[in-house]
């Protein structure tokens, strides 16, 4: 029996994706319905598809002291950390609580495997990784979090969650547990994933990639567009930032169904949603906006549209924002959590960009275009390979439960 949890303040957050660097570019793109997708210009061999690529990642070398971690994924992390004054906010928290009283919990699906891929393309004459890439730090799924711990000088509990596309949603749950038990006073959560051949050709091999920009919840949708992103948030006890928006609840579950397709009736997804609402102490009718997982894969969107219609009234508005950013995989949880927070802050329901003719399973909840209304409570769904589900609930500081 899940009981309500004390809410946490989300006292700072930031996002960098194909929409741009920092929160302002995201606000503007969501208002204007401007997609960040472009034709694939990053895979090493041709692959006809659209991608959500972040501009300028290659131009952002790491500080010399952190050069051991240099690779494209950590460059994106570094770019993301420097937006919206986030570094300063973490520095202030470090001063207030102490470096060992702040947890660092990040999600990623492939971390810096792009650097390992490059090493294999440039093997030396004896078949070894080339000298410049013989760095253990970057050939590990913990590369991202290890780098960010050094960059932020944090010395508390530090771990990477890697549960595919739910990774950077689940870190909010881990952080809440650690803060509630008093292991730490605050947590930096988030996630980073970069475009690389593994995911482009991997999802391609599963025939899950669309040749055109993805069309979530369109009746003729034909696959995902992959994106890359970095996002971070600072979580503290509510009394530390009384005016900040809140993390109200989280839910986690497993489908126990299939490694690469969701449960057709959304059994695990529903468990995660119900658990998140119970932990938030809210009824479905109190949810104003849901940022859907909405990948534009045939199976996910059918399952999720049916689930939405079954569990929520049509006064709950909902959309997928994958048409803006692409599916940013291990970073999707944090990017869409930030979009949910922007919805609360600005009273903005993002439109479900990319769909032309709605799937008949879609209820009147769907926001096909951006709309302005008060958003007191916003939810974000993240469902990953292996049937790994997470759901987060955020709210205004003064939301009544």
């Amino acid at each position, binding site marked *: 029996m899940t009981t309500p949890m004390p809410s946490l303040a989300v006292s700072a957050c930031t996002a960098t994706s194909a929409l741009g660097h920092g929160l302002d570019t995201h606000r503007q793109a969501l208002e204007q319905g401007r997609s960040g997708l472009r034709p694939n210009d990053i895979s090493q061999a041709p692959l006809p598809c659209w991608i959500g690529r972040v501009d300028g990642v290659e131009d952002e070398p790491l500080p010399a002291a952190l050069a051991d971690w240099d690779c494209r994924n950590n460059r994106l992390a570094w770019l993301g950390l420097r937006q919206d004054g986030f570094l300063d906010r973490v520095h202030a928290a470090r001063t207030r609580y102490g470096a060992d009283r702040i947890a660092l919990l990040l999600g990623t699906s492939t971390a810096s495997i792009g650097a390992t891929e490059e090493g294999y393309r440039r093997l030396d004459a004896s078949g070894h990784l080339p000298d410049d890439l013989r760095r253990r730090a970057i050939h590990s799924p913990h590369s991202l979090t290890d780098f960010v711990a050094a960059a932020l000088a944090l010395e508390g509990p530090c771990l990477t*969650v890697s549960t595919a596309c739910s990774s950077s949603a689940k870190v909010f749950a881990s952080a809440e547990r650690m803060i509630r038990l008093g292991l730490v006073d605050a947590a930096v959560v988030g996630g980073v994933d970069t475009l690389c051949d593994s995911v482009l050709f991997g999802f391609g091999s599963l025939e899950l990639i669309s040749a055109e920009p993805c069309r979530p919840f369109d009746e003729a949708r034909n696959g995902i567009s992959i994106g890359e992103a970095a996002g971070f948030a600072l979580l503290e006890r509510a009394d530390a930032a009384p005016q900040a928006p809140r993390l109200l609840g989280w839910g986690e579950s497993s489908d126990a169904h*299939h490694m690469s397709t969701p449960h057709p009736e959304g059994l695990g997804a529903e468990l995660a949603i119900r658990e998140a609402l119970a932990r938030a102490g809210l009824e479905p009718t109190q949810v104003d906006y849901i940022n859907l997982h909405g990948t534009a894969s045939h199976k996910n969107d059918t399952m999720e549209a049916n689930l939405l219609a079954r569990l929520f009234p049509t006064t709950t508005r909902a959309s997928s924002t994958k048409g803006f950013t692409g599916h940013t995989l291990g970073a999707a949880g944090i990017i869409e959590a930030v979009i949910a927070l922007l919805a609360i802050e600005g009273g903005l329901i993002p439109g479900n960009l990319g769909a032309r003719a709605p799937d008949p399973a879609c209820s009147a909840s769907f926001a096909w275009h951006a709309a302005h209304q008060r958003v007191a409570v916003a939810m974000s769904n993240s469902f990953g390979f292996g049937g790994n589900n997470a759901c987060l609930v955020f709210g205004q500081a003064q939301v009544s439960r």
Partner: protein
Amino acid sequence: MNALSVYVEGLGVWSSTLADIDALRARRAGAPPATPVERPPASRLSAGERRRASASVLLAVEVAGQAVAMSGRAADTLACVFASAYGDLAITDYLCATLARTPDELSPTRFHHSVHNAPAGYWTIATDCHAPSSAICAGHATAGAGLLEAATLACAGQQPVLLVCSDIAGHGPLGEVVACHHDFGGGLVLSPILGPGSRARLALTLARTSCTPSSPPIDCTSGMSDNPSAALLPLLESLLDATGHVTLAAARGLALHARVEPMA
């Protein structure tokens, strides 16, 4: 820092010369090393799943199955944390080698096996478990960070939790850099409350220190010290004795002290 208290209800272990906890107990009592075996039986998987599963999945499912069987708990309601420093190094080697030559020929099965949560996915499918499952890593501190995450999940959720720490040996050019030469997996079932299945109490405290983690006993597991998951082995040994004090790295500069106390 604050302490967490959990009760250990089940243990599991596997390496090529340690088939299970009984084998570890026997080795500590002076039995000769067993003849190495190639693959763990992973009997919780169906025959079809066992055929499809990768080496990292077989290893993780094996120790998970052992620990849950000893606990007497039903696997289908048990939240689980699967920790692995490297994930499936053999599949990463395959992926990178294939992408460098013939990316269009990438195997879709190997690709979906490449996710870090493949063991969690296979385990929850095999046991029909809808409880939360996670897959984590923390470099050299993976075992300690995994234990901390699992104990936190148990205490915060007031629920029993399965922890698996497992890493397989590296392959190819990546394997050279990673330098992990032996498969090792360890598993625990933790409960926040004392019950009939409690075998020992674990008191966990975090300390900011440049800790010296407890080393695996060399005679049981020669060459195992390069496997980050083997950091769990000294704790498994203390749990067999139901007494002792073990230190694991939990993060850079953060130690997790585990005091093992017998049941009254």
